[in-house]
């Protein structure tokens, strides 16, 4: 693997920064949860028994969890679980990782629970559990657990404890997929150094924003592509927002497709002397071919999503004359193969978050209470498919 880029000087003093700067949130730990007779915990989960559109196949299933925990298990209560595009693809059955359908929750048909990441609070622990205790916050070590649920049992080995000090459930609940993806893509594919550039599309996505901020921390410059909004003022606002996050340049797809854009990039990069080493692609199709043209010779396009559902067309010139490389990245596979580095990275990103160096992604919170209707939850999931959203959907659990 290439060497990690050196951190900028300002990062060295992380420990010295006063904690007071970091956002603080009221304790969420002491709330009571719904109990059934004999101490059974009443839980709800968004499940599906066959693949299809979320609105068609999701249903809200209620079940109860026994108070006598197996010795290595934990009872968890959800605090915040996001709705990521991949979760939708998974439900549609067009995602490579397919969760097993089981009868564990007592659904009439074997089912799987939607969602792949989130922040949970430990409600109680089995006798032999050592590493976490009641009140701790955890995230799942692996994707595929099924996180859209109010409560769940998990094994000690499934979870990664995080220090909740100075963090919100949303920050913790959204750390393991998008920021980690951005982190690895900028670090593992090319030896990119301070002062060099990367270019990305989907720049306002969760991953895109994480890349902008990590890049800024690491002294990388970025060209960021967003889609033109129907309303030019909204486009300008989005540009401004990303610039404030730390983007070096923000352009729209139509500016990217402009004939003169390559010259523009040349000008920005000091006549091409500053290399554009990495391209991050979550869109595909024609605009990505235009993005590829901006990469420096021997650059690397890393694809991690296909929002436009269009394949990539590689011109001869790209591969042969510019010697570009094309790879894909998939964070679940990476995490499973690198558990220790994953933990270290999560802690590093959360520390940056505490210090205010890693801003929250805009979210559309949907409060999931015990009384929240199934249709409300399903609408939230289905809504994730539309473009131009004000923020990523996140279930925030209230009175469950």
């Amino acid at each position: 693997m290439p060497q990690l880029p050196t951190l900028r000087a300002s990062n060295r003093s992380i420990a010295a920064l006063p904690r007071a700067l970091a956002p603080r949130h009221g304790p969420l730990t002491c709330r009571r949860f719904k109990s059934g007779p004999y101490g059974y915990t009443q839980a709800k989960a968004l499940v599906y028994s066959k693949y299809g559109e979320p609105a068609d196949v999701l249903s809200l299933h209620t079940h109860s969890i026994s108070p006598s925990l197996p010795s290595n298990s934990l009872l968890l209560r959800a605090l915040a679980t996001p709705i990521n595009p991949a979760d939708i693809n998974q439900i549609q059955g067009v995602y490579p990782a397919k969760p097993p359908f089981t009868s564990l929750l007592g659904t009439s048909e074997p089912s799987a629970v939607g969602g792949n990441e989130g922040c949970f609070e430990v409600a109680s622990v089995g006798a032999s559990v050592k590493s976490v205790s009641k009140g701790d916050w955890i995230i799942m070590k692996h994707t595929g657990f099924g996180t859209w649920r109010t409560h769940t049992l998990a094994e000690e080995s499934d979870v990664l404890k995080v220090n909740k000090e100075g963090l919100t459930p949303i920050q913790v609940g959204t750390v393991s997929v998008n920021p980690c993806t951005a982190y690895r893509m900028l670090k593992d594919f090319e030896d990119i150094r301070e002062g060099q550039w990367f270019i990305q599309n989907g720049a306002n996505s969760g991953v895109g924003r994480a890349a902008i901020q990590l890049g800024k921390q690491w002294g990388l410059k970025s060209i960021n592509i967003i889609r033109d909004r129907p309303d030019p003022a909204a486009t300008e606002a989005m540009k401004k927002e990303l610039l404030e996050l730390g983007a070096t340049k923000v352009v729209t797809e139509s500016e990217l497709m402009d004939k003169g854009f390559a010259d523009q990039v040349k000008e920005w990069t000091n006549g091409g002397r500053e290399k554009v080493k990495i391209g991050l692609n979550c869109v595909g199709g024609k605009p990505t071919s235009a993005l590829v043209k901006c990469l420096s010779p021997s650059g690397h396009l890393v694809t991690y999503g296909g929002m436009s559902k269009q394949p990539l067309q590689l011109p001869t010139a790209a591969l042969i004359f510019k010697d570009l490389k094309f790879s894909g990245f998939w964070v679940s596979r990476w995490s499973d193969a690198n558990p220790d580095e994953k933990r270290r990275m999560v802690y590093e990103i959360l520390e940056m978050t505490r210090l205010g160096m890693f801003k929250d992604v805009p979210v559309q919170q949907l409060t999931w209470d015990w009384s929240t209707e199934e249709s409300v939850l399903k609408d939230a999931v289905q809504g994730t498919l539309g473009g131009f959203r004000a923020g990523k959907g996140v279930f925030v659990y209230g009175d469950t």
Partner: protein
Amino acid sequence: MSASALAFDKVGSTPTENLHFHHFDPPDLQHNEVLIEMIAAPVNPQDIMVLLGRYPVSPSFKIYEESIPGYDGVARVASVHPSVLTNGTLKPGDLVIPTRHGVGTWRTHAVLPANLLLKISPEVDCRIAAVLRMGVTPAYLLLEDMAVLRPGDWIIQNAASGVIAQFVTQFAQIRGLHTISVVRDREDIEQLRAELQSRGADIVITQSELEAKGAASFEKEGKRIMLALDAVFGHSGSALATQLSPDATYINYGSLGDPQGTVGIQITQQQLFWKQITFKNFRLTQCLGMRSQAQINDMMTWFGELAVKGFLQIPRVETVQWSESVIDLIRLQSEDILRGSKFTSKIMASWDNREVTNRHLLPYVDAESAPPEVAAALNTLPFQRNIFKLLANAQVNFPPFMKLLATCWNPDLSLRSSEYQVTVLRTASLLDAPYEWDVNEPVARVLGFDTDEKLHLIRIGDLSNTQFFTPRHRLISQMVFQLVHDNVVSEATMRQAIELLGNAATMEVMMIHGVYSMLARIMNSVRIDFDPPIPGLEDKLRKYNAVAIQKEKEAAAQD
């Protein structure tokens, strides 16, 4: 000494428009310099790119202010400056190949600094030696540098009839890897299939067969397809990518099918992000650049050893005599490549080294000192040939053999003389017997195969042109192919032959093939030398074959 070279004064819009044939006198040797005589040099697709100004490395040497192309080839050291002898690297007689791109091999002689030449084992076949740099080396590096491969893994490659691909197959075998070789659709696919399989390809499949199979079809059979090697780009390249298994690598190393770069290849999200296939490019210069000159030299030396031990077989190439007319062949070849015409095999110019070779392993028997019966047999033909002088070592067999041999061109045969020549020339090319080709080519010329083009087609075994060749010619060619490859003519072909040729001619083809395949094997085994030019050969042949020529003319008029 008459030396000659091809050189171009400027890059052209076609590869040969500025290519000229020059005679020159090699300069005197300076300190550390070596005079070499080229033995063979191929026409590679890159050479054509050089002539078009589309290759990153330009030629390093000039003659009359013009650049000398050709980056690959093999030569023999003719003489060296005394300073070279003292440091002991090269001596006259050594077999050498260039150590760098740009050396300019399309010439008969060159004076070069010794460090531009690498000595290789004298036993390496010249046709392999001549492509060590641009054929063998890329094949090896494609498997070595571009992906981690494990025994049992599969490789899928296109342009599989090409030289590089054929060496890829052979290196794959050495490393316990399997290959799926994709070739363009063609009529004589079975012949090519057999040929590539005989060099180690596990599966040979045409482009349309591959497309009909659908994506990931080999993977579904349980094969791990871990590497795609694409020299074509465009649709063919995309089709390779669809067959790759998770974590595989796709490498492009040429764009034969998309020279204008208009089509490109298509990559799906599924390939990139679910299967985590990496797409990248191969550059020979880059891979060589990661190695020291000493490492490169050791690698080439090892390739030579592999060739000598028989691990690397001679690829399908067509050898032509070096002369002014190679320009025409290069033009045809490059037009084919640029136009994407099918089924060209690499041409390799070879230099006539008659005065230097004297490698025969058995003595040449002289008519004057031989017993009378042997001497008489030696004079069967109106001119001397080395092959007869060698055969005469078997004093008892030789005289009756010559009688048998003479029956092959007996005008009373039911086989026509042009058919006899197809039998002989196909035997010579399939058994790779240049001497046999060389002595029979003039005969073929007087018997109706009177143009370079016709001979070229016979040499590569493409007898599909109905203007030049009859159905009988094609059938005979097929019989010879089966005899060489399978040791047996298939029953279906036999039945066809009996129908089309008749009983007598069918048997005659097989007997003539028997005689000439024996001769081919003997010639190659005893390391026969080419004959010195025979003055007035054509006239002699016309006179000697007058009856046959007349019959052939009459027959042709009837067709």
